[in-house]
Structures are given as C-alpha cells and as structure tokens.
C-alpha cells in the first residue's frame, strides 16, 4: 500500500507537510495561508504541476491550508504529536 499522507511526527511543531507529488498547483493554500509560510515551486512535480511547499518556519497550525486544498491527501498539518489523545467519536 502506498502511503499518500505524511505520518511521522515532524521535527518542530506546528508544522505543515505538503506531499508535493499530489499537488496540482491550484495555489489555493499559498494564497489562503494567514502567516504566508507556504511557497510555490518554480519546477514541476511528476504530474506536471508546480507545487506548494512549506518554507520551514512560522506555521501556526491553523489548518486553513488543509481545508483550502482540494486534494484529500496532499496537505497534513501537525499541531501536536499524532495520537496525543484519542479521537472524539459521537454516537
């Protein structure tokens, strides 16, 4: 099974991970990011699109880029380490 989303907890938190090979270059996340910490590449990925990427510093973990991204698995935003507490499930 191919892993389409990043799973490892990143080095510093908060952090945004863009899986560049899934990006279709719509630029929504770059424009929407409040602290403007996403860049837009000049080269193209294997799908033939320019892609967005994290500049490496300043992510607040707001998740706005995640909701703006139309591709289900392209963006992962980390606020706390994964599975810090169990997911709330409503019955």
């Amino acid at each position, binding site marked *: *099974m*191919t*892993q*389409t*989303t*990043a799973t490892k907890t990143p080095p510093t938190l908060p952090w945004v991970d863009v899986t560049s*090979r*899934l990006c*279709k*270059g*719509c*630029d*929504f996340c770059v*424009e*929407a990011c409040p602290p403007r910490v996403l860049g837009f590449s000049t080269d193209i990925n294997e*799908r033939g*699109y320019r892609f967005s990427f994290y500049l490496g510093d300043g992510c607040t973990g707001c*998740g*706005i880029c*995640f*909701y*703006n*991204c*139309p*591709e*289900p*698995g*392209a*963006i*992962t*935003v*980390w*606020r*706390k*380490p*994964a*599975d*810090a*507490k169990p*997911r*709330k*499930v*409503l*019955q």
Partner: protein
Amino acid sequence: MKDVFKKPDSFFDEFSRSAGVDKEATHYCPGCGHGNLHKLVAEAIDDLGIVDRTVFVSPVGCSVFGYYYFHVGNVQAAHGRAPAVATGVRRALPQSIVISYQGDGDLAAIGANEILQAANRGELMTVIFVNNAIYGMTGGQMAPTTLLGQKTTTTPYGRKIANEGYPLRVSELLSTLTAPVYIERCTLEDSKTIMKTRKAIRKALEYQISGKGFSLVEVLSPCPTGWEIEPLASREWLTKNMVSVFPPGVYKERTDAEPRTMEPLKVLNAQEVLGALNMSAGPDQRVASIPPDFPTHELVLAGFGGQGVLLLGQLLTKSSMTEGKFVSWLPSYGPEMRGGTANCHVVVSRRRIGSPFVPRPTLLIAMNQPSLEKFADSVRPGGMVVYDSSFVKTASIPSHVTPVPIPFSEIANQLGNAKTANMVAAGAIIALTGITEEESFTALIKKLRKKELIETNLKALAAGRESALALGIQVAGVGIH
C-alpha cells in the same frame, strides 16, 4: 481543534478502484471544488462516527467516481436518480446514513423531479448539491443554474432570458416545501466560507442521524476548467458573479422537527413470495406434460390497428401459458387507437425464452398488404406465411416458405361480425401449428367479459379451423426443433 489535520480516514488510503494509472490523487482538475467538498464530507463522516453505516450515492457528473474515494457503502445512480436510489437504500436499511451527492446538471435538470419528490416526502437523507453553474464533465454546456450572460459551449453568446430563461434557484424552490428540515446554501470561495460549508455539512448529517428528515446543502463550487479560467481566478469569479444570483444562507431549518417514524418494512421470505404468486419452488411440473418434440414457435402477427392482432397474440400466449409452456408477447404499435399499423412478437416454447424479440419468425400472420410486404422476407426457410386473402391481392412470398391464403375478413363478415377476423385467424393458426390446444383457447374465450361475444368468437374460431384444414396443407415441422 484537531491535533493533526490529515486525510480523513473515510477516504481509501489508496484509490485502487480508479481505472487510471494514478491511484494516489483524485481525478478532479486543479482547483475543483469537489475535492474540498469530498474532504469536508469525509471528515464529517469520521467525526460523527458513521463510517460503518454511511452509504454514498454518486450521481452522473464529475463526482460519478465517488466510490473510488469514499471508504463507505457506495451506489452509483443513473443520471438524476440519486434521490430515488437513496430513498430505496434508506428505507431498506433503516440504520444507514445516506448521502446523495449531486451536481447541478444532475439534480436541477434531468433529476429535478426526483429531488423535488424526495424532499417533499421528507426522506431521511442528506443531499450535497454542488452548484457550479455549468455541466462540467460533459464539456461545459449550459446547466439550469447557468448565469444570465454566462458563456458556455451551448450558449456561446451568453445565456439569454428569451432563449433559456433564468437560472434555477434550487434551495429557494425546495425551501417552499413543508417537509425538509434543513436547507442551506454555502460557497467555496475562501477559507471563511469553506469553514461555513464544513459546519453546514455536519449539521445536515446530524439532522439525518437524529432521524428528523430531509436535509440539503447547496454548495457554490468553482469549476476552473468549465469556466475556462485559472483556479484562483475561478474563486474570484464565483464571488463576483455567482453569490449575488445564489445568495448563501440558511433557507429552511426546523429545529423543532420531530424525528420521523418509519413503518418497518415487511420482509417476505422466498416461500411467502412464491405463495403470494401462487407458485411453488423447483422446476415447473407442468412442463413435463408438454410433448418433448413440441418446437419453439416464433410468431410475428401484423395488421392495421383495430384488427385485433395484439389481442390475438395475447390470447395465443395466454392460452399456451395455461398449458405450462414458456411464452412471451412483445407488442409494437403506433399512438393511434384505430388505424395505423400494429404488430406483436410471440414466442411459445417448452424451454425458457432468452429474448422476446423475433427477428426471424417461423410463422407470419399478415392481416393486410403492407404487413405482408414488410415481414414476408424475414420468415425462416420452412416457415409459413398466413395472410388475409380478402385484403392481400398481390402476394410476393419467398419460395422457401409456405404461403397460406385464408380470407379471414370475408369469413368473419359471413359470420356476421367483421371484428372476429382475428378469431378466424386464431382457429387457423391453432389448426396449422398446434401452438396451443383448442380447448385451452376456448376456455380463455369463455372467460370474456361480454357474454354475447363468446358464441360469435367460438363460431369464428371453428370457421378458421375448418378453412385451414380445407386447404389440406401439410404443416408438420413448422417451428424450431
């Protein structure tokens, strides 16, 4: 707030159902609103804990491949029929949560009636209505929701009121109904409105989970490809042009709605179904009484409308059916009640019938000249062409079939009722082919509602039999052995 914003669990990890080589990314164009919406729906399914009982109904449109992505129950409906399918699923599986995900071409055009009726019945379902003012999948044609002046491939000079009317406002329309509990219109123009949409989808699903009734979220969504602009520009276009025509907001919300009570479906077991149909399980015992050399008869009966060829075919099949034979009757007729042409295909066999369509009949019954001309050449070699010689004056019949001219109409006239020509034909057919027993046919005639006609018909039947036997035609072997 979440610790990690990541691909919702309600999506497949890998889109292995996709027919393309790309199993990782969706098939949607860059900047397409479907991706955002899919994410919001999947996230809501995750968070509401309904993944195991959700059934996602995909429409025809770009979102036709919903089953590639959502790791829930999936049905793909015919164009516009998603609310009807969703109704069936929800009623058959009362514990399910059904999401009908439809575009504007699907929901507001071909499926406009389905959504109206489902909403009016207050079906327990959640409809996600994606409105992008255009037919996206088929190449950017005008949709009912297309804006005035908007250029599409089918309105190259822009939509005009005089030609195409006004954009259809579905949320406003449906909110006039009494039954729906929640109707909201949202947009996907920026972060703020996306988060509003997220909330609306959850609310709509919660109304279904609590059993209150029909909920619909209309979402104005960008279609950069259909609108022929860049993704970022498409969001601006949406804000600038669509929002004023389709104002966002809550159009209906009945927070005080009582949970709907559904009558439990009565599920019949196989025995009960057979009992209700007056049948029993296993091979039909009556078949055993049919002679093993009974051939398959494939008939075409044709004539003017009003001559009774359809009824004749029906009676022959019904009569054969009472003997336990397999039968089929396929009518074809014009819209006229009298006149015009009519024909029917009849198959009678001791085996199951694969197709009711008869392209090469073993027997043609032509009640007039045009029918004879039309079908005579299609009769199988060794077959028979029975025609009404009172109407057919010049018959050109292929040499490999047996012509049987009988003046059905004249005989019927002599008996005093021209309408019984079809019964004369029936008598002749039965005598010539043995397709059914005359007793079975007589029994059917005796069940006629107009009692005064029974005697006339029986006379006509006998006259037909005699006229056929008088010809002295050797007929063994007609039919497919």
